């Protein structure tokens, strides 16, 4: 009888709290929108299931070594890759091996839109400071505005490891919600005439340019912002594997098997890190609010900067301001959103390739911004 009672004390039913149930519902919601609505399923299914794994209640601190925050547990070992910032550079390697920079190379001025959208990071940093977070926490929260999950995790792991779960969940949730968050802002800030602007077709980019770009870009950005070396180094290395033409096997592994494995580990552990006992705090709620705000500011600043650029551009060199919204990195979702809004305004206006320019520039811009935050706030 005593054994049975002891066993009952160990069950999830005995240890459940309202927090666990709320988080389980959040996990189920993530899985639902991933499968039903097809919102970032490759991220939201692992994260959603990770939330379920992390929120099955059990008796803590009795040596079971089950929880993600308990030393020696399997989940704790897997979480090591998040805490030490190992997974994000590996994800960047895969992203680099998938990314085609020709859209950016064919129209280099679009790189400025990728820079403009990073305003969201720094305005959110100010917002976080105003709400009482300390400098390092504010920096880690601000990076959500970069709309780049791996960068957000990388920076949070360095600046505010205790907030990593909330920041990662906020970053990935809003990335999945890009098709919901961005369109109203884009419509609000552009006129019908501006949405109808057709952009000049892109020029053909030579193979030499594509090979030289990752080397050039890495050297320049890393010399300016060495804090971004782990991210940009892997991004451009992956891209060189793709473009060199002599490392197809490596490039292929980086963009398929490797990135898939790391995505699974990252998604599940980030999800599991949202254990109700440590995750459901007023701070987490504030981070969610600030995250949404940063996405909106980033989108708005990209669009407004595109309009500003148009003041200096003439004739068919004018750019469609919608592509400014793709400056938030969320690759390639924000570019797809631009394409959809552009086609709705004019069914013959294909903006996807033009939007990919600011989109990949946004990845570079957010990694540079991350390096600056590390240098200033850790130094």
């Amino acid at each position, binding site marked *: 009888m005593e054994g049975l009672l002891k066993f009952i004390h160990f069950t999830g039913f005995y240890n459940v709290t309202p927090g666990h149930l709320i988080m389980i519902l959040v996990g189920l919601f993530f899985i639902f929108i991933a499968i039903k609505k097809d919102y970032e399923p490759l991220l939201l299914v692992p994260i959603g299931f990770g939330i379920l794994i992390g929120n099955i209640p059990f008796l803590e601190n009795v040596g079971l070594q089950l929880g993600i925050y308990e030393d020696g547990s399997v989940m704790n070992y897997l979480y090591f890759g998040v805490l030490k910032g190992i997974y994000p550079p590996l994800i960047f390697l895969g992203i680099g091996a998938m990314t085609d920079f020709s859209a950016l*190379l064919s129209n*280099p*001025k679009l*790189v*400025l839109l*990728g*820079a403009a959208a*990073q*305003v969201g*990071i*720094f*305005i959110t*940093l*100010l917002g976080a*400071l*105003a709400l009482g977070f*300390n*400098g390092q926490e*504010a*920096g880690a929260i601000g990076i959500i505005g970069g709309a780049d999950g791996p960068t957000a995790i990388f920076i949070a792991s360095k600046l505010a490891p205790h907030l990593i779960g909330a920041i990662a969940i906020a970053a990935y949730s809003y990335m999945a919600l890009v098709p919901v968050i961005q369109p109203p802002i884009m419509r609000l800030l552009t006129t019908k005439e501006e949405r109808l602007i057709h952009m*000049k*077709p*892109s*020029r*053909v980019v*030579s193979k*030499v*340019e594509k090979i*030289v*770009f990752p080397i*050039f*870009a890495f050297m*320049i*950005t890393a010399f*300016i*912002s060495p804090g971004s070396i782990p991210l940009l180094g892997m991004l451009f290395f992956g891209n060189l594997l793709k473009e060199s033409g002599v490392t197809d096997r490596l490039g292929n592994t980086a963009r398929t098997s490797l990135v898939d494995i790391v995505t699974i580990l990252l998604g599940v552990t980030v999800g599991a890190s949202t254990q109700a006992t440590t995750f459901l705090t007023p701070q987490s709620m504030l981070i969610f609010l600030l995250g949404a705000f940063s996405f909106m500011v980033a989108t708005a600043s990209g669009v407004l900067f595109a309009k500003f650029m148009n003041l200096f551009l003439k004739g068919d060199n004018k750019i469609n301001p919608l592509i400014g919204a793709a400056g938030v990195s969320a690759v390639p979702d924000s570019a797809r959103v631009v394409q959809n809004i552009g086609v709705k305004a004019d069914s013959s206006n*294909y903006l996807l*390739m033009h939007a990919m320019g600011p989109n990949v*520039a946004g990845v*570079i*811009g957010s990694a*540079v*911004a991350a390096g*600056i*935050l590390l240098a*200033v*706030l850790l130094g």
Partner: protein
Amino acid sequence: MIETKLLGMGVNIGVLGISVVFSSLIILLYSMKLFVFLLKRYGKTVEKKAPGLLIKGVEGNEPLSGEIVSAISLAIHMSHEEYHDLERAIITFNRMTRPYSPWSSKIHAIQYTTIDRTKMR
């Protein structure tokens, strides 16, 4: 007081951050422009090295027309989605059960013609 100091620090970081992000991407932009310029001026063109490889009507830096881009996109899309006329190479045997009917009877379809076997030799 501390909050004001913190906000001041935030403004400083913001201004510094935005300036550095912009300047690094602008340097990147101009260095790539310079590289393309030097490549055009001093680099060997593809045409000189292998004239046969160039596609007629598409010059080095001439923008592609919308029709060409859409035709290429459609071809890539169809190729990725496997919209082609190959069928799956899986053969399945499904047992067909059909009730007997004289109308579909095979025996009635056979012509009763005699074969002169002597001619077959």
